[in-house]
Every structure is written in structure tokens, then in C-alpha cells.
């Protein structure tokens, strides 16, 4: 996989099962390494993606084929990993972010990435995790 030129995207369809979390981390780590991040940044990106995919598995909903969708977008100095599921869990996401375990997951993502965005539409929920090169 290569994520090098501006606006280059890669995608992964991931079965929405806890056993697939290691594959999500591997995908994120490879995208970060291909972007040129050092080992520590690669770990941070993989950690954040793992949290977002965990939330999608626990609180979201897979598509009709049982998948959640990961993508990596390299845009200039910024790498953005997106985790999208087919749930529209605005209320539960907000509740989970506000307290308890879900809150811990979001707090960790926010500390390890430069930006965390939660986008809820009528068809899907997407978490976008961005980190810029120094």
C-alpha cells in the first residue's frame, strides 16, 4: 500500500468483529508508515483507529454486508484516517463520549491525534482522525 502523493486514498472494508481489530491496527499502521510517520506516530495513529473501530463495533452498525469502512487520505502534510459505520447514533455517541468508557476512548483519540471529528448523517457515522507531519 502507498499513501504518498497529495489526495491519495486507500480503503479497507473490515468485518465488524472484535477479532478484526488487529487488522484495523495493521491497516492504520501501514498507512501511517507509508505517509512517512516515525514509529511513535504510527503507533498513535493505530491506537486511535483501534478506538474508533471499537466504538463502531460496539455502538455503531455495519453495512448490509457486515462491514465497516476504513480509509486513509494523505493530503499534503496531513494524514486523515476515517472510520465509517452505517449507524446514526448521534445520541448514544454523545452519551458515550460524555462519560465512562466511551469518554475515555474519545479522550485518548484526542490526545494522540491532532484532530478528531465525529460526523453523523442520516445514513452513517464517521470518525475522522487527523495528524500532521511536523
Amino acid at each position, binding site marked *: 500500500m502507498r499513501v504518498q502523493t497529495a489526495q491519495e486514498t486507500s480503503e479497507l472494508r473490515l468485518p465488524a468483529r472484535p*477479532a478484526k*481489530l*488487529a487488522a484495523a491496527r495493521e491497516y492504520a499502521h501501514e498507512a501511517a508508515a507509508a505517509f512517512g510517520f516515525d514509529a511513535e506516530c504510527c*503507533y498513535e495513529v493505530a*491506537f486511535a483507529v483501534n478506538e474508533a473501530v*471499537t466504538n463502531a463495533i*460496539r455502538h455503531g452498525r455495519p453495512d448490509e454486508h457486515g462491514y465497516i469502512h476504513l480509509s486513509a487520505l494523505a493530503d499534503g502534510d496531513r494524514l486523515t484516517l476515517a472510520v465509517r459505520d452505517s449507524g446514526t447514533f448521534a445520541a448514544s455517541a454523545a452519551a458515550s463520549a460524555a462519560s465512562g468508557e466511551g469518554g*475515555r*476512548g474519545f479522550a485518548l483519540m484526542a490526545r494522540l491525534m491532532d484532530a478528531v471529528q465525529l460526523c453523523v448523517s442520516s445514513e452513517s457515522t464517521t470518525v475522522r482522525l487527523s495528524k500532521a507531519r511536523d
Partner: protein
Amino acid sequence: MGFFYISDDGTVDGAEHGNDVVVLVAGGEIDYSASPQLSERLADRIDGGITRVVLDLSTVTFIDSTAIGALAATATRLRELGAGTLAVVCPDENRRVLRIFEIAGVDSMIALHNSREDAIAELATVS
């Protein structure tokens, strides 16, 4: 699927303190495919009457928020039982895992120790 294991690693005789210390060792990656097993194993021991638990995470390479949540819940449960304690071993060398504990802000709930000896010594002082 990531690699994960958890096993009992003996009981430290605590007869003079009136309560044994159980040592559990976990290794590999503790994500949401593994954290329910971790919770279950800890709960089993507490259900069995153990109130002092050392959990050695020295060889854990990855820990997520669901695992931290499981440990926080276990520590809280032990405290509520009275005289119970969870002591987690995570040496300084395992800095990625330590950093997650730090960022998660659970240091007031979960006691971290640099070595198993330190953790056992700490629990021996709990009466």
C-alpha cells in the same frame, strides 16, 4: 486476530496477613477481542474470594480503553469489597502501555508498579 494470553502465575502465601495474593500474568495485545476475557478472569478470582490481585502486564504490547475500563471496574469492585486491592505491574521499559494509563487518567484508581516484587510488597502492607 491479535495475540493475547492470560494465566495464573501462582499464589503468594499471605497467611500472616490473613489473605493470599494471586498473581495473574497477561501478555500480547489487549483490545476489545481480549478485554472481556481479562474482565472475566479477574471477576472469577474475586468471586472465588480473592481480594488481593497482582496483574503483571510486563509483556503486554498494546492496551486499549476497554481494557483500561475493565481494570478500573475491577479496582473499584475490590475497593468496595473492603481490604481489596488490584496492583498492576508495568515496568518503565513498557512505556507505550504506561503512557496509555497516564493519558487515560486512571492513576488514582489503579496502582501501577515497576516490578512484581514491588506490587507484592505493596499488597502485603494492606491489612
